[in-house]
């Protein structure tokens, strides 16, 4: 069955107020075409979850699409803090459920396995835990291990309405390969009620069948497949293209102030009709070709 959809159709399937797991990690495999289209469609009230914040979360937060973020922290790396996230947390306009990378992963893992809760050794004694205990309802509790009697911290499962996962290769049913490290993507997709796949390459199901060991996201969990080249730009997609350091710097500088960020949105998001318009604005194929990955290096 074909699940091929346009980016606009896939985004339109997500109602206001939905909980969305995003596949980005700092400047790698961020769901950027998804984020831009969600901003153009004016989606509001999202709860976004991510182990380590990516630019996809940052731009959605900056555009006012997100009410709550469930995450393990994160920055862009050497190019600095996610400025929109930082601003919204500092001024209190973004509700934050702050965890660590592993505790966020364990919450997805519990969700993917259908478990009622999951014990973890992390977080104990920290101010992160205090913050989570103050939430109402709290996503953390303690139980006694029935075998040893030891007390354990336990986490509530995280089961988003939809996971939006940026991949290298998928077929039209949504069977998808993720090349390179997968961080929390597999658990995100399996914990969520459904998954939207954004793929750089669309291949036949026969091609998937010839290397089934590579399939990380099973098609039966997928509702939409969006085939869109460079849909993670300016972030990297391992073995397909490198991150665009120049554009990330442009975004980093612009997002330092609300005014600069608005100008960025006006030019690169609202100023274009869709992702193809964005790619043309960047400089089209001539510009994008310079980002193509070397097959040995992967970047």
């Amino acid at each position, binding site marked *: 069955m074909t699940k091929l959809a346009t980016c606009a159709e896939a985004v339109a399937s997500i109602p206001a107020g939905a909980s969305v797991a995003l596949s980005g990690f700092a400047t790698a495999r961020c769901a950027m075409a998804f984020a831009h289209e969600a901003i153009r469609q004016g989606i509001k009230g999202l709860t976004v979850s991510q182990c380590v914040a990516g630019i996809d979360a940052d731009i959605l937060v900056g555009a006012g699409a997100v009410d709550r973020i469930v995450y393990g922290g994160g920055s862009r790396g*050497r190019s600095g803090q996610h400025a929109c996230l930082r601003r919204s947390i500092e001024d209190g306009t973004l509700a934050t459920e702050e965890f660590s990378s592993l505790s966020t992963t364990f919450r997805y893992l519990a969700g993917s396995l259908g478990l009622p809760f999951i014990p973890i050794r992390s977080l104990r004694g920290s101010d992160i835990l205090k913050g989570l205990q103050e939430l109402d309802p709290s996503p953390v509790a303690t139980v006694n291990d029935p075998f040893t009697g030891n007390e354990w911290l336990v986490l509530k499962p995280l089961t988003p309405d939809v996971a939006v996962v940026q991949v290298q290769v998928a077929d039209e049913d949504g069977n998808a390969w993720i090349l390179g490290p997968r961080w929390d993507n597999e658990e995100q997709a399996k914990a969520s009620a459904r998954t939207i796949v954004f793929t750089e390459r669309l291949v036949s199901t026969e091609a998937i069948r010839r290397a089934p060991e590579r399939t990380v996201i099973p098609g039966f969990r997928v509702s939409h497949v969006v085939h869109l080249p460079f849909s993670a730009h300016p972030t990297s997609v391992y073995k397909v293209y490198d991150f665009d350091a120049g554009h990330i710097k442009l975004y980093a500088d612009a997002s330092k102030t609300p005014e600069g960020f608005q100008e960025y949105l006006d030019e690169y998001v609202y100023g274009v009709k869709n992702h193809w318009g964005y790619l043309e604005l960047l400089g089209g194929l001539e510009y994008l070709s310079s980002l193509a990955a070397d097959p040995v290096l992967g970047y």
Partner: protein
Amino acid sequence: MGLGLPVIATFLAKRTHAPNITIMFELGVIDSEPIKVGVDGLSDPRIWYRAKIHTSFADMLGSVLHKGLVDVGFLGGLEIDPYGNLNTTLLGDPKGKFRRFTGSGGGNDVASNAKRTVVIIRHEARKLNKAVSFMTSPGYLRGNGERERMGLRGGPSRVITDKAVFGFDPVSKRMRLESIHPNATIDDVLSNMNFEPIMPDELPVTAPPTAEQVRLIREEIDPEGMYAG
């Protein structure tokens, strides 16, 4: 491990006295051999190059770290207190006005689950503080066995600054000066921190890096000087 000086130090160890260590990055990269380590961040595919395994958080931080297989975790931070409690989240008043930084990432997980951790931090009074604004990653909490009672594994064994090396008193778990670097004086060390470390009876000078170690860092590991200036 996190990015920056911990990466330089770990790749140096691998090239010198510890060729058999397994280097792991939280997002799911094991034993990579990057052409250069002065990279943009953990998400920069340059640091994933020639890895033996590309995997996931659940595998890396779960079945390796949480299970208890990580011998040494390497961490950096904004602030550290006398008990090795680390802040990477915010500076200021968490309930009032504050400046937000990165948060935990895998930092809390490494601090809670590794057999021991080593912290690298710049030697400045605002970083070596009586108390941290926000405790992202636990050290020995308030000392005297509180960490063990909390069910946490390991704990910080060394804090390395650009002026000195610190350890921890085996009982009180307060930070203890272990050695000072050849370029620093005791006054230099103590006047640039906001608490008094335990002073040993004898204070050795930190062994300086060998010419070969310096050459490896400057010419091979971080030739562009992105981390090691």
